[in-house]
C-alpha cells in the first residue's frame, strides 16, 4: 500500500515478512511511530484500532491505514452509530485528526455525543497539581517501603495512556469537552454544503450526484491541505486522519439507491467508493462508512459496494424483532456478520475460526462473542433454553419444551 510506504520512507524490499519468529530486528527503529498505531502481527501493515477491542480482534488486529471499513447498519441505526462514535472517540484519545460527514446530524452534535474513555489515570492538569500539593506530606509517609519510587510522578498524563492500542469507553457518559477540543475535527454537514456546490462538468452528466462529488472534493481538499497524502512536508510529526461517513446511500444524500428497485444512479455510491478507495490508498487515513443496506432492494448492488470496500461487517439487532424474547439470544443485542476481510499486500488474510458472532453493548464494553447454542440435555426433541437449565422459568419463552419446564427426566 502506498500509505505506509511514504510514511516510513523505506523501500518495499524491507517489508517485514509475515511469519517471523519472536525475534525483532533492530531496524524497526526506522519506522516512524505514529501514536495510536502499531504494525500488524500478520503482515506488518500499519493498523489502528476501531475503538472496540473485540471488533479489532474479529477483523484481524485492527483497521489497516489506507483501508475502508463498511458497516451495514442495523434497522434502527443504533449500534452502527455507536460503532462510528467508538471509532471517532478512539481518534480523539489517540490524538488523530477526525473528519465527520453526515447528512442527518450536524457533525458537532455527533462529536459531542462521543463516549467517555475509561483511562485509569487520566486527570485534568489543575487537579493534578492540587493533589500533588496536598498529598506531599502524606506521600512521604506512604512511601516507606517503596521509597525508591517516590520521586516518580504519581499521575500519568493523558498522552502516556494513549500509547496503548485500543481503549475502553463508558457509554453512559459523554466525553469531556476539553478532551474533545484537543482533537482537530473537520466536519461536513450536507445541508450546509448543498448550496455551495460547484457546477457539474461540461457534459452535464457527471457520474456521481453533486452530493457525493462535493463530499469527495471536500475530503480531498482536507487531505491535501493537512498533508496526509505526503504532498506537503509536515513540519510536525505524521498523523492519521480518521474519516467517518454516516449513512451513505440513504435518501438524504440525494441517492435513490435505497428508495427504488432500479435506481437511476445505480452506480453513484460505487463510483464514490472507488474514488474514496483511491484517496485512502494514497494517504495516511482510514475510513469507516455506514450504509443502510437493509433498505437497498437490489442485493447485487450491495455486493458491488462490498467488493469496493476492504473490510465489511453487517449488524443485525434484535430490538423489536421476535428474537428479542428468544431465550437463545437473551444475552446478546444482535448478530454481527463479517462479510469480507481484506487481502493487503499478501496472499492470505486472517480468516476467523467461525462466522457466528453476536454482539452485546454493555456500559463499558462492546463485546463480540461466538454465538453457540447450549447443549441439548432434555430427552425431548426441542432445544432446552438457558433459562430452563438454570431452573428459572422463562416468561414468554418461545417454543422450548412445553409445560414440563424444569423437569428433565434423565431416566436410564
Amino acid at each position: 500500500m502506498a500509505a505506509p510506504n511514504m510514511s516510513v520512507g523505506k523501500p518495499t524490499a524491507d517489508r517485514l515478512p509475515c511469519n517471523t519468529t519472536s525475534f525483532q530486528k533492530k531496524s524497526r527503529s526506522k519506522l516512524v511511530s505514529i501514536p495510536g498505531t502499531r504494525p500488524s502481527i500478520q503482515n506488518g501493515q500499519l493498523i489502528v484500532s476501531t475503538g472496540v477491542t473485540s471488533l479489532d480482534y474479529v477483523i484481524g488486529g485492527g483497521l489497516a491505514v489506507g483501508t475502508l471499513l463498511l458497516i451495514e447498519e442495523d434497522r434502527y441505526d443504533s449500534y452502527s452509530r455507536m460503532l462510528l462514535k467508538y471509532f471517532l472517540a478512539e481518534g480523539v484519545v489517540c490524538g488523530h485528526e477526525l473528519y465527520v460527514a453526515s447528512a442527518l446530524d450536524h457533525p458537532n452534535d455527533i462529536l459531542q455525543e462521543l463516549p467517555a474513555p475509561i483511562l485509569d489515570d487520566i486527570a485534568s492538569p489543575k487537579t493534578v497539581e492540587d493533589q500533588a500539593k496536598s498529598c506531599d506530606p502524606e506521600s512521604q509517609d506512604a512511601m516507606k517501603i517503596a521509597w525508591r519510587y517516590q520521586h516518580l510522578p504519581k499521575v500519568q498524563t493523558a498522552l502516556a495512556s494513549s500509547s496503548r492500542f485500543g481503549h475502553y469507553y463508558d457509554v453512559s457518559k459523554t466525553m469531556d469537552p476539553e478532551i474533545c477540543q484537543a482533537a482537530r475535527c473537520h466536519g461536513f454537514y450536507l445541508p450546509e454544503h448543498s448550496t455551495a456546490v460547484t457546477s457539474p462538468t461540461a457534459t452535464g452528466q457527471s457520474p456521481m450526484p453533486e452530493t457525493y462529488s462535493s463530499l469527495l472534493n471536500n475530503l480531498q481538499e482536507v487531505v491535501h491541505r493537512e498533508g496526509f497524502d505526503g504532498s506537503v512536508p509536515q513540519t510536525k510529526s505524521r498523523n492519521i486522519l480518521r474519516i467517518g461517513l454516516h449513512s451513505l446511500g440513504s435518501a438524504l444524500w440525494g441517492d435513490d439507491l435505497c428508495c427504488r428497485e432500479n435506481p437511476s444512479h445505480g452506480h453513484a455510491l460505487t463510483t464514490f467508493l472507488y474514488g474514496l478507495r483511491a484517496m485512502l490508498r494514497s494517504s495516511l487515513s482510514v475510513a469507516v462508512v455506514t450504509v443502510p443496506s437493509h433498505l437497498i432492494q437490489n442485493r447485487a448492488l450491495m455486493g458491488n459496494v462490498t467488493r469496493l470496500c476492504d473490510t465489511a461487517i453487517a449488524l443485525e439487532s434484535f430490538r423489536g424483532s421476535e428474537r428479542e424474547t428468544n431465550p437463545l439470544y437473551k444475552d446478546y443485542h444482535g448478530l454481527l456478520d463479517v462479510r469480507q476481510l481484506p487481502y493487503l499486500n499478501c496472499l492470505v488474510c486472517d480468516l476467523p475460526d467461525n462466522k457466528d458472532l453476536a454482539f452485546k453493548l454493555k456500559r463499558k464494553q462492546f463485546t463480540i462473542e461466538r454465538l453457540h447454542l447450549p447443549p441439548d440435555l432434555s430427552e425431548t426433541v426441542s432445544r432446552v433454553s438457558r433459562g430452563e437449565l438454570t431452573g428459572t422459568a422463562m416468561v414468554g419463552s418461545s417454543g422450548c419444551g412445553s409445560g414440563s419446564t424444569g423437569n428433565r427426566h434423565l431416566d436410564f
Partner: protein
Amino acid sequence: MFAELNSILNTSPDNFKAGEFILVSDKQTDASFLIHHFLSFYLRVGCKVCLLGLVQSFSHYSAISQRLGVSLAQAREKGQLVFIEGLKESLGVLLQGESSKGTRAVDFLRDPSSGLQGLYDFVRDNVRLAVGGSGEEWGPPVLLVDDLSVVLSLGVSVGAALDFSHYCRATVCSELQGSMVMLVRCEAEEEESDDERSEWLLRGLIHQCSLTLQVQGLPTGYCRDIHGQVRWITLSVWKRGQCDRWPTQKKLFQYKVHDKGASFFARGTFSAVL
C-alpha cells in the same frame, strides 16, 4: 508462480502456450491470488507484461510478487512491466478539477456511457510497443486485467466491457500472438437476482476465452482450512486443422492459499481433513 498450478495446467517456464485467453472468475471468494500467479509466471518467463490494476495499488502487487520471488519495481524500470494504476488516475478524473488531468485510459469514469475506448487505446499502444522492440527483446506480450467487473460497478455497460475484451483479444492474442488473463468477479447466485449484468459478462467472456478457471467457495459452507475450489475448464481449440488438446475438459480442485503460494489438491484430500 505456484508450482502446483503449473503442473495442473501443464505449463512450465520453458513450455507455455501463446495466444491464450485465460479467464479467471470468482464467486463468493477472492481469486486474485491467481492473478498474482500469472503475473509472476509471465514475468519470470520473460514476456512483456501489461498489468491493468483497477482496484489495487502498485505496492500491493509488488509486495506480493516479492514473496513470490519477482521484483516488480525492477521489471518496471527495465521496461518489462507496464502498470496502469486505475486508482491513481481515477482520482484526478472524479474530482471536479480540470478535465485534462489524467490519461485517456480512465475516461470511462467521466462518462460511463462512452465505453472503454480510451482504455483499449492505452492498452493497444503499450502492448504494440513490446513488439516494436526498442531495447531488449521480450517474449510475446501478455495483458493482465484485474478486474474487469469493477467497470460494471462504475456504470459501464456489459456490451462495452465485452467489446473491450474482444478488441483486446483480437490485438493481443490473434495479432501479436500474446496471452491475456482477465479476472471477473461475480455475484453469488440468488433466486431473485435483479442484476444479472455480471452473469452476462461472465457468459460472454466464457464464450470468448480458451481456458476458464472458476473459483468458488466450498458449496458446503465456510471452512478455515480449505479456502475454496477451482474448476478448470479447457475449451477445445482447433488450430489449422490440428487439435491441440483434448476436447472440453473439466477438472475440479480444492485449494488453500498460503503466504507464499497456494496448494491445490483433489477434492477431500487435504491433509487437515484426512
